[in-house]
């Protein structure tokens, strides 16, 4: 930051400016994510059609009052399948991100709190794990265990672990250098106590932002995997496989691929914006750089 801020507190000025501004990313993010969640929730009690109902006489129909988004190449209602597909998307995202946070956070805190001698090799190990992207890991899982929604979400989760670990570590390093932690240490508090009482609460907002961003990446990865045929297996609806289905009829019905594509884009955009907005909201220091 510039030393020009000496005379007046420019940071405070910008802070005020920031507070007075509408947090658009957060608003739009909440709306888009809410849309996906509502779609999934409603699908439990109601869908316009049975998503598995095959109507051989009404294949590849365009949008109509009875089928708002038309039907796929088996004559199934696209909107119904899209709604049920939202469940798959959210399910995979929640499990994958939960898994990544559950393993990555303690690992990262340990890396951040460990003495240098132990910490450095752990960081190297984490760097090595980062060289296995979630999607690649998921394909490996698919090869060994067979493709399914479960393997996909576990693989995506494990692939996201090192990302969480890295964020948790950098946050922990910051917290560990603060005076209240130094005071707690000199008062003889044990490392686990410091981790739980001081580190975890202080890095939670960092982790929340990361969770939102990772959720977007998980949605992407699941869609890609299902598109490749390594994720959710048909006939269970998933956006990725619907896109794959639609791609085979692209020459005849280009509109078909628009719907699942739009759904994927909305979910990813929503979670990314939510992460951005949360960052703005929770950590003004980070937001300052992106103002």
């Amino acid at each position, binding site marked *: *930051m*510039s*030393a*020009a801020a000496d005379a007046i507190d420019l940071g405070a000025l910008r802070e005020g400016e920031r507070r007075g501004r509408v947090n658009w*990313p957060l608003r739009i993010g909440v709306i888009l994510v809410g849309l996906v969640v509502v779609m999934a929730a409603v699908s439990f009690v109601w869908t316009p059609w049975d998503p598995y109902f095959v109507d051989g006489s009404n294949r590849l129909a365009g949008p109509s009052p009875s089928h708002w988004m038309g039907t796929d190449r088996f004559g199934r209602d696209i909107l119904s399948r899209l709604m049920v597909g939202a469940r798959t998307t959210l399910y995979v995202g929640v499990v994958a991100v939960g898994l990544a946070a559950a393993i990555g956070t303690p690992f990262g805190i340990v890396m951040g709190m460990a003495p240098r001698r132990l910490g450095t090799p752990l960081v*190297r*190990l984490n*760097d*090595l794990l980062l*060289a*296995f*992207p979630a*999607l*690649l890991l998921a*394909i*490996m899982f*698919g*090869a*060994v265990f067979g493709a399914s929604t479960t393997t996909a979400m576990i693989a995506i989760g494990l692939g996201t672990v090192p990302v969480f670990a890295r964020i948790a570590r950098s946050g922990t390093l910051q917290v560990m250098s603060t005076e209240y932690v130094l005071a707690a240490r000199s008062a003889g508090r044990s490392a686990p106590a410091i981790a739980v009482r001081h580190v975890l609460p202080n890095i939670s907002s960092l982790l929340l932002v990361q969770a939102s961003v990772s959720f*977007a990446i998980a949605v*992407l990865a699941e*869609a*890609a995997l299902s*598109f*490749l045929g*390594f994720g959710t297996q048909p006939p269970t609806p998933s956006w990725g496989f619907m*896109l794959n289905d*639609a*791609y085979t009829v*692209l*020459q005849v019905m*280009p509109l078909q*691929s628009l719907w699942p*594509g739009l759904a*994927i*884009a*909305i979910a*990813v*955009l929503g979670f*990314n*914006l939510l992460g*951005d907005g949360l960052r703005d909201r929770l950590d003004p220091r980070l937001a300052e*750089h*992106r*103002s």
Partner: protein
Amino acid sequence: MALQLLVRTATLVVTLVLASLMVFGFMTVLPGSAARVQLGVNATEESVAQLEAEFGLDRPLPEQYWDWVSGLPEGDFGTSYVTKATIGPQIVDRMLVTLWLVGAGMVVALVIAVPVGTMAAVRHRTSSGTVLTALSQVGIAIPSFLAGILLVSVFSVWLGWFPPGGWTPPSRGLGEFLGGLALPALALGLVQGSVLSRYVRSTVLNTQREDFMRTARSKGLLPRQAMVRHGLRNAAIPVVTVLGIQMSTLLVGAVVVEKVFVIPGLGSLLLDGVANRDLLLVQGVVMVLVVAILAVNWVVDVLYTILDPRLRAAT
């Protein structure tokens, strides 16, 4: 600086060995027996044992590992249990195709990200800056395979300018080669360019606020001159890091884009391998991808020391 290079290279070698152990462990040890995987659950014990002996899978694991890993530096990836073909030559062939794709994707990404990101930073207080930032956010949300499908529907199905897929090597006609490369490279590059442009934007913004930029202006440099002479190199350091990370995203993205455009690259080879349960082939391709990612990280590290004198002297 020479010492640093040595240390970093040594680290790379150790990391590569560890990575090979992980890949071997995952693909060979974890599934139990490649022979059983191939023959299916209903196979008799004898036939499994026979096949294992044929593949050399009855030998101790360390021996199997050494046999596999010692061939890697020479491009010997073993012989497929499924197709009985040697894996090495296939990988080399396919790698070239993927390299073209990833390279072109990276160029597209840079061509998009640098001007867009810089513009968004310079005009960050105006509406055009906000529009650019919003557009990049939308670009990130469109995965490369979706971008590919959209590009095909517009430029192949509707306009008919480019083929919807397929691959022509550059040796068989440059025009057709470029025509086939254009859409997949765009599909890859659009997304990565959007991601990268956000980093370029925040880096340029941060650099603009650096004290030394004000010093440069106080010497009489115009804002643009200060940016070119002092800002860009400083801004390059974080951008290079992101580029390194993006290379791995690009490689993985290429796997999916190759499927969309039916391109015979490493990705298609990998997916075929998985479909055929050809574990050794998958093991080889995964290893190549991981080596590529680690090698890029190494290049980024070395670039750092070249770009930043502060790292050269550091112990």
